[in-house]
């Protein structure tokens, strides 16, 4: 028997040139496609408009997705779980409105911000509770909480915009400050991206999200506490969204109850473009950030080309459709190539 096993050892793993295989891996990476599209758009735009390749333009594009990008990171983990959170728009609004009201009532802005953040974590916990203990579908649960929280925003603001010009400069620094010429928002975003990408790839805790999303039953049978994983992903998603809201509050110095409408769609679409799957088990931070980068790149480009602003939403929908179609066709070709007959 051991002789039989030895014979198989030679043929079990095909040796590959390591350098070539790394190159091949990069080529096959989902992200490569998006990077190529981004580069293509940049090249086209640099010819189409003289303003495109200016620092001002580039900074403006990056600023736009730097804060929403934090929400996209949370949504990526949610999609890897195989779940969905369509309450992020409302949560982000709430994390501007609640701290604003608390601050205007005389509380220190930092404590107000913290309170807002904690409130968002609690909302995430509520979402998580209904999904795990009550057994509701994430879509329905977050649809419901979206309404509840958005309603709360309107109640708190009575429908009008709250102005926060009394915010101290130290707090406003979050949204308006610069670190050796680069906006703090962008620096903060880069730090968050690096940390979350690392954690998603390396920590055991987040690896369990992949297992749960890929096959919940198999995860359970492997000893993973599936309920716990789901619960904390909902908390994480809401928490990251809350953080984004605080940053927006510091940047715009105001809070309005209709902020963030449509955020969930942008977040989900960005993550899907970046390689996350609605059915779970797949996704990367880097890919999702590329997704939202592409979105804002196209939006800004359309503006530079003097295209009517109303075409924005049309363009976003079109990009999403094209990107996932390209991906889907690629997947079909890949699965036929690696087909192995199993009787």
């Amino acid at each position, binding site marked *: 028997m051991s002789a039989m096993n030895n014979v198989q050892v030679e043929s*079990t793993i095909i040796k590959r040139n390591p350098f070539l295989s790394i190159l091949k891996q990069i080529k096959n990476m989902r992200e490569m496609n998006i990077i190529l599209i981004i580069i293509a758009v940049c090249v086209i735009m640099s010819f189409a408009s003289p303003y495109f390749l200016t620092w001002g333009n580039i900074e403006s594009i990056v600023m736009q997705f730097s804060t929403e990008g934090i929400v996209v990171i949370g949504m990526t983990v949610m999609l890897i779980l195989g779940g969905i959170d369509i309450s992020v728009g409302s949560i982000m609004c709430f994390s501007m409105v609640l701290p604003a009201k608390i601050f205007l009532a005389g509380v220190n802005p930092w404590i107000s911000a913290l309170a807002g953040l904690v409130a968002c974590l609690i909302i995430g916990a509520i979402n998580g509770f209904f999904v795990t203990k009550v057994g509701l579908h994430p879509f329905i649960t977050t649809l419901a909480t979206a309404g509840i929280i958005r309603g709360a925003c309107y109640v708190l603001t009575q429908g009008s915009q709250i102005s926060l010009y009394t915010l101290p400069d130290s707090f406003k620094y979050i949204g308006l400050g610069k670190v050796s010429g680069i906006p703090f928002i962008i620096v903060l975003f880069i730090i968050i991206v690096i940390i979350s990408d690392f954690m998603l790839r390396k920590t055991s805790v987040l690896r369990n999200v992949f297992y749960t999303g890929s096959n919940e039953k*198999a995860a359970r049978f492997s000893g993973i506490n599936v309920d716990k994983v789901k619960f904390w992903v909902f908390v994480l998603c809401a928490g990251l969204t809350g953080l984004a809201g605080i940053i927006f509050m510091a940047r715009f110095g105001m809070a309005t109850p209709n902020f963030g409408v449509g955020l969930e769609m942008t977040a989900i679409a960005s993550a899907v473009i970046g390689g996350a799957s609605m059915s779970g088990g797949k996704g990367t931070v880097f890919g999702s950030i590329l997704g939202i980068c592409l979105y804002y790149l196209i939006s800004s480009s359309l503006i530079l080309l003097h295209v009517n602003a109303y075409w924005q939403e049309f363009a976003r929908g079109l990009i999403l459709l094209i990107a996932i179609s390209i991906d889907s066709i690629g997947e079909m070709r890949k699965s036929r190539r690696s087909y*192995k*007959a199993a009787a």
Partner: protein
Amino acid sequence: MSENILLEVKGIDKSFGATKALNGMSFQLLKGEVHAIVGENGAGKSTLMNIIAGIFAPDSGEIYIEGKRVEIKNPHEAEKHGIGFVHQEIALCPDVSVAENIFMSEINKNKRFTVNYKKLYDRASKILKPLANINPRKLVADLSISNQQVVEIAKALSMNCKIIIFDEPTAALSEKEAESLFKIIRELKSNGIGIIYISHRMAEVFSLCDRVTVMRDGRLIDTKNINETDSKEIVNLMVGREIGDIYPPKRDSSTCSKETIFEIREFSDGKRFQNISFDLKEGEILGLAGLVGAGRSEVAQSVCALNSKISGEVYYQGSRIDIKSPGESIKHGIVYLTEDRKSAGLFLDLSIKWNISAMKLLNVSKKGLIQNHLETNQCDTFIRELGIKCSGMNQNLSSLSGGNQQKVLLAKLLTVKPRIVFMDEPTRGIDVGAKNEIHRLIRKLANQGTGIVLISSELPEIVGMCDRVVVMHEGRLSGVVVDEEINEKKIIQLASGV
């Protein structure tokens, strides 16, 4: 003789990218014969069947039906040529009635706006009557697996098939249900229908079929008349090498340790089983036998906290263990190898490496951070020790064959260094060669001190592998057999409640 040839394929080639699945495959099916096709996983059986059924087109080669050359471009055309397929995994719509499933393509093609349901149910009843007692109005999801299979057969018959392909039909059937299936097949045969029967079970092939074709590596190895050969020869042709004793040697009951290392007492869940108690001695493989539905998997799952229980105690080496969650069970070293590897055992869209690490990330991580070199080493070790055939540890699990997937599942369980393993149908749907390897691995584990409870519905496997056998019947203990009493007859008696 040539008028009798119902179906003939000549020189069929089929490649998927770099993999050549079929290489000049040729084969003939006669009218009114049951023709078995056997071969290891990867031999090309499914690919050949899929080509005949119109799911793929061959790269080259010819197909003749009743002497006429045909091109089967899609399943629709296959249907028109009278080819029916009863799949291994039931291909019916579960939320739709039996009659609608049977006549689905007819309803589709019908230009009329409405469906005459009364007529539909009547016609369905007529077709079902000689096969089994099934109500055509019932939803397919409410039927037992064997009845679902009958519906698939009825579907093939409703299209007046001349050729019916059965793919591993008895994999999910009990002995009794398999017998009814054989009766149906024999009747179909007597009506002149040609039947292609794909199976890994030699006993069935030899009792049911007239001829057998052996495939290996996409080629025809040989076609033989059943009465001119035996299972040993066929297995050797399939594998291409001599397979010695089919099962590894059991432990010597006179010299081995009689020490009890594991015991369960009075396990009941109030629904599927009651008062189940048995013990496991050091180094032994304990069989848990019974008919499908006897409650064996449920007992094992309850012990490992994957299912609820209303009473029951677990003892390991004399001391009581309280298991409140699957995680705790794994921590105590008591693990369950699921019979359903695809839906409950493996992460099909993740890599081999990730699959193996899933049960104990602690093995490959330091302070909560997964260390790539540790994970790679662990995976590498198991790929070598279990002989997992793959093109690399980052390969997606879905592209491995059934036998190799099962090995990955076993590897996953072994990462926790289990003390007791409940193996539920560990060789289901796996070819003879891989089966043999897994059997040897199981015996090796037992010899090394891991307690093994082997749940299997395949009697030869129970008889060949187990040192003692506990038999269950409808949720209760029916008996325990040892030594000479471990034979198929005795076990079936106990399993049937006799």
